[in-house]
């Protein structure tokens, strides 16, 4: 679907857009927002929207990488752990090693590159499924974060400066308060849309996920592309972790626990196929907004805190059923 819509005549493009998975996700997002807004007037208050927008980019940035990776037919369960480890390493370097904050951030990102490269190389060169490789990596990375901090959260960098502004600065628009992370999310989203839809690389990514052998037979370097996508996903997870740690001025070794599943849920709810070949960044953005709105909205409308995962799970399930039905219809049509 990503492959086709920008190349079609207008009439056909419109009908295919309406039938596309990201469109049905968008409709459901609007319905959900409307329900929450009617149920609780505070849902659309500047404070609540500002709150949602503060969280959104942190998971959303990871979801962008995950979308590209899933489109190429692989996924990464270690992103939540990397989200936790990266800022912890940065703060340990600064506080115990006396390293300059800039170098520490760079070292943290290089660590993410290494983690992603190890994931990718084991998956492609040894041929173990990404589920098993990244599940093991999740344990290794999370274990490392716990061990090097002895389980205690670290105070994060809170002196104002270039890097704080760059990663977690905030600004007001009217009575809304936004963080710079929103710019990161918007910028990276545009880049991801460009790559997946319009660039040569995006053609390769979709082809690899759709039929790896076909892509390889055409001379597409499938393994190299996958390794770079693992690296990208890891780096984005680390970046998101740093943004989060700077925003709340704390780096916790257990930060990001369970994020891997939340991120994968965002991506597939948006319409990207778990089996590869079909990915949509717009869908992922809708999916990220949707999961954020659900988590926020059902608390506001008074669902008991302990019950709310039930609703999150059910809504995700409903979305996936809808996508599956649409897909069946499309195949028949």
């Amino acid at each position, binding site marked *: 679907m990503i*492959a086709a819509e920008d190349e079609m005549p207008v009439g056909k493009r419109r009908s295919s857009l309406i039938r596309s998975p990201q469109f049905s996700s968008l409709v459901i997002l609007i319905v959900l927002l409307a329900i929450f807004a009617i149920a609780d007037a505070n849902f659309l208050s500047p404070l609540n929207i500002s709150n949602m927008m503060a969280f959104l980019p942190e998971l959303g940035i990871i979801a962008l990488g995950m979308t590209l990776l899933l489109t190429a037919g692989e996924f990464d369960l270690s992103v939540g752990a990397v989200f936790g480890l990266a800022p912890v390493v940065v703060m340990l370097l600064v506080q115990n090693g006396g390293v300059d904050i800039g170098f520490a951030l760079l070292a943290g990102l290089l660590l993410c590159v290494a983690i992603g490269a190890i994931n990718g190389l084991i998956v492609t060169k040894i041929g173990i499924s990404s589920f098993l490789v990244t599940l093991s990596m999740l344990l290794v990375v999370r274990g490392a974060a716990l061990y090097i901090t002895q389980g205690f959260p670290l105070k994060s960098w809170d002196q104002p400066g270039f890097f704080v502004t760059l990663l977690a600065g905030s600004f007001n628009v009217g009575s809304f308060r936004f963080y710079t992370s929103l710019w990161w999310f918007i910028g990276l989203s545009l880049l991801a849309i460009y790559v997946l839809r319009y*660039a*040569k690389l995006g*053609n*390769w990514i979709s082809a690899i996920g759709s039929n790896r052998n076909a*892509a390889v*037979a055409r*001379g597409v370097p499938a393994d190299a592309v996958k390794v770079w996508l693992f690296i990208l996903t890891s780096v984005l997870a680390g970046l998101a972790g740093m943004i989060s740690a700077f925003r709340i001025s704390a780096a916790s070794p257990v930060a990001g626990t369970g994020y891997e599943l939340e991120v994968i849920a965002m991506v597939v709810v948006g319409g990207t*196929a778990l089996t590869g*070949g079909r990915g949509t960044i717009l869908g992922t953005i809708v999916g990220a907004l949707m999961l954020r709105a659900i988590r926020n909205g059902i608390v506001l409308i008074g669902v008991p805190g302990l019950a709310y995962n039930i609703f999150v799970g059910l809504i995700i399930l409903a979305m996936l059923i809808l996508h599956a039905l649409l897909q069946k219809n499309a195949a028949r049509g």
Partner: protein
Amino acid sequence: MEVLRLQNLQKSFGSVRALKNASFALKEGEVVALLGDNGAGKSTLIKAISGVFPADRGDIYVRGEKVSIRSTRDAMDLGIETIHQDTSLAPDLSIARNLFLGREPVKLKWLGVFAPLDFAKLRDAASALLKRVGISKKLDADALVLTLSGGERQSIAISRAMQFAAKVIILDEPTNNLGVEETHGVLRFVKEVRDAGHSVLLITHNIHHVFQVADRIIVMRRGEIVAEQTVADTDLLTVESIITGADMSALLKETRAK
């Protein structure tokens, strides 16, 4: 004019000698059928030619020049296009994107893999190609490959091989899993490909198809080429007996007596 020559090609996997000693030549504009039972070494042979893995020993000549084929890209650059069974197209991509997969027309080439696709060029070239090979009426260049039938997919894959002016087109079981009608369509297409001046190496299990389209037959058994005959000089039963290695002359006599 000889387009492809293999000289003493050998390939082993561990202690298994999959390809013992294969030599043959392919002329311009001819269809050569490569026959043999499972495990005869057909796949190994074509994989060595198409660059999936290099041969251990032996030489490959393209138009009389000795070449080295280390990757699928090498083979494609030499004008050798291979259509593997069921694996040559990406179903989630459009026909146009599939036709140019790995050789995408782009703008701003210096951006490397990040270069934007030239959609106008992509669409025009795809439509022109579909028209040239006579399948434009039904197929839209923007249609996803997953909406196509098996025969249409084979035709698209073969057209793609033709578009890059391939000297040699290798077809690996092109009629597998196809219906009768579609099989005939693909075979007709193979003839057109030959008439357009390309050489075709056709790997198949179906001897009947061979007699419909091939000019020459090469039979492999246990990693070796055991027979090479022109189609006009042989018949179905003879070829069958060479493939299986069984002595079918008795059967042959019996049949002829009737």
